[in-house]
């Protein structure tokens, strides 16, 4: 299980209000939410992001509200992985429940530059910056978390478990 894409880089404490401003929380449609993803921190994000791209940010990514709309908006915008030294705890939980891969790596967060091509291996935790050639290692997901992400989130995971 891998992710590969171009990096959008942001600073510390990227909060849920800039990921998806509350003025758009009157809908829970992922496509609608994706149209406004990162709007208040980077108005051009939505036009530039391509399927597979990766967000790299500073510590405490996703701080603020419990809105699941935040990881939903990021995922629906096409982003395949978020890398940061640390995540706010509700966002961390919500991202996994929504099937949005997140990796904790201080080094990768500091060294990877905006626009770099990056490849992530979720099984080994290896993060490769193809532009600089540098390789970083994050803690890989335990198997059940990998399965949740493969099942597109907790609901899909529970449904698949019920089938088997």
């Amino acid at each position: 299980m891998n992710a590969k894409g171009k990096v959008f880089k942001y600073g510390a404490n990227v909060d849920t209000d800039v990921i998806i401003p509350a003025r758009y929380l009157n809908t829970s449609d992922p496509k609608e939410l994706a149209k406004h993803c990162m709007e208040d921190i980077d108005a051009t994000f939505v036009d530039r992001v391509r399927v597979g791209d990766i967000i790299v940010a500073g510590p405490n990514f996703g701080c603020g509200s419990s809105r699941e709309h935040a990881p939903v908006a990021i995922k629906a915008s096409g982003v395949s992985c978020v890398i940061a030294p640390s995540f706010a705890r509700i966002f961390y939980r919500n991202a996994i429940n929504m099937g949005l891969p997140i990796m904790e790596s201080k080094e990768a967060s500091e060294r990877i530059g905006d626009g770099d091509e990056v490849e992530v291996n979720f099984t080994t935790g290896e993060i490769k910056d193809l532009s600089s050639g540098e390789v970083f290692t994050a803690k890989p997901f335990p198997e059940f978390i990998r399965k949740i992400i493969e099942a597109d989130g907790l609901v899909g995971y529970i449904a698949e478990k019920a089938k088997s």
Partner: protein
Amino acid sequence: MSMTMTQKILAKHAGLDHVVPGQLIEAKLDLVLGNDVTTPPAIDVFEKTNATQVFDAAKVALVPDHFTPNKDIKSAEHCMKMRRFAKAFNIENYYEIGDPKMGVEHVVLPENGLIAPGDAIIGADSHTCTYGALGAFATGVGSTDLACAMATGQTWFRVPEAIKIVLSGSLQGHVTGKDLILHIIGMIGVDGALYQSMEFTGAGVATLSMADRLTICNMAIEAGGKNGIFPVDDKTIEYLKKYAPERYAAERYHVFAADEDAEYVRVIEIKLDEVQLQVAFPHLPENTKVLGEFERVDIDQVVIGSCTNGRLEDLRLAASIFKGHKVKKGIRCIVLPGSQRVWKEALREGLMEVFADAECVISAATCGPCLGGHMGILAKGERCVSTTNRNFVGRMGHPESEVYLSGVPVAVASAVLGYIGGPDELSK
């Protein structure tokens, strides 16, 4: 095996004798909460779980408060979806607009007697941590967790490490619990308690009112905390007796206390007498400055209310400072009582007349402008002093507007002055 107060509550709800930090546990829940933003997506998930009923209709609370009274068609449809769900599953604690129990979720749940010491609570709202004021474990989750908990009555937790915050002395002058929590967030940062409990203790606890404790725990999340929690004392029990008389009479609550030798990752000692009036500058709650130690900041709007500072004690304090003063011409001051009960009591006590005479506008109980929903959105370049909990970019409106967080006294004084200032600057 020693444990913190939070760890003891979690162990009890997981049916274990003890737990250690980092341990993953499955815990039974005493209450599960959702609001009009987080419940509609949870209903979709709930349907996918194939559950035919909620685990306990008396232990689910669904509160329309964020965009209510409905701000637009989409919000109205969200609220309708929640209302229909509440009706279909006989949710007792669904509070329709106008219901005597209605209001902002974290103001009404304690007032409506749904919280007691020792409870384990999750809510699909980050400020669910408010209830730690009553010696309960309470934390925020997302809609998927809400849905699964509505179906099963349980959820999984990672047992948190804890920070011990030892309080001594008592707050002085116009300094409130809000200033204390802003001071702490300024000290440790917005991720200073990431994944951890903030356990308050020390002789200073007894000097803090329940309203102050609710305000303090409310903002534990702004330091990244999983929960904030106060020990149970006479004030907690008095509160329980008043707001949850049946649970008090039936002794349906549990008093937990941290072990003397419980382990903490950090101990912070705070002399309450030394805490000064605080203002958190844009765009993070950690950007705190002591009142008087910054250049003049002119403002356009003041907001008094929210789950942080919308309780009766807050409105009483606001009215006592407003008395004999008026909001400065050209400034808007919006007062949002936190609940219908607070609204009615404020009316009865004459507080509403003080606000009206001071030329404030008074709203229905709603989260409203706090999260940029409605009832006081800021235009580009506008500045607002607010008793709410977040001042992120675009939180209350235009991405180029600014929110300055403060306690009630600074907010009132600023409304009168037209710039950020304290009650001591008002003419006597």
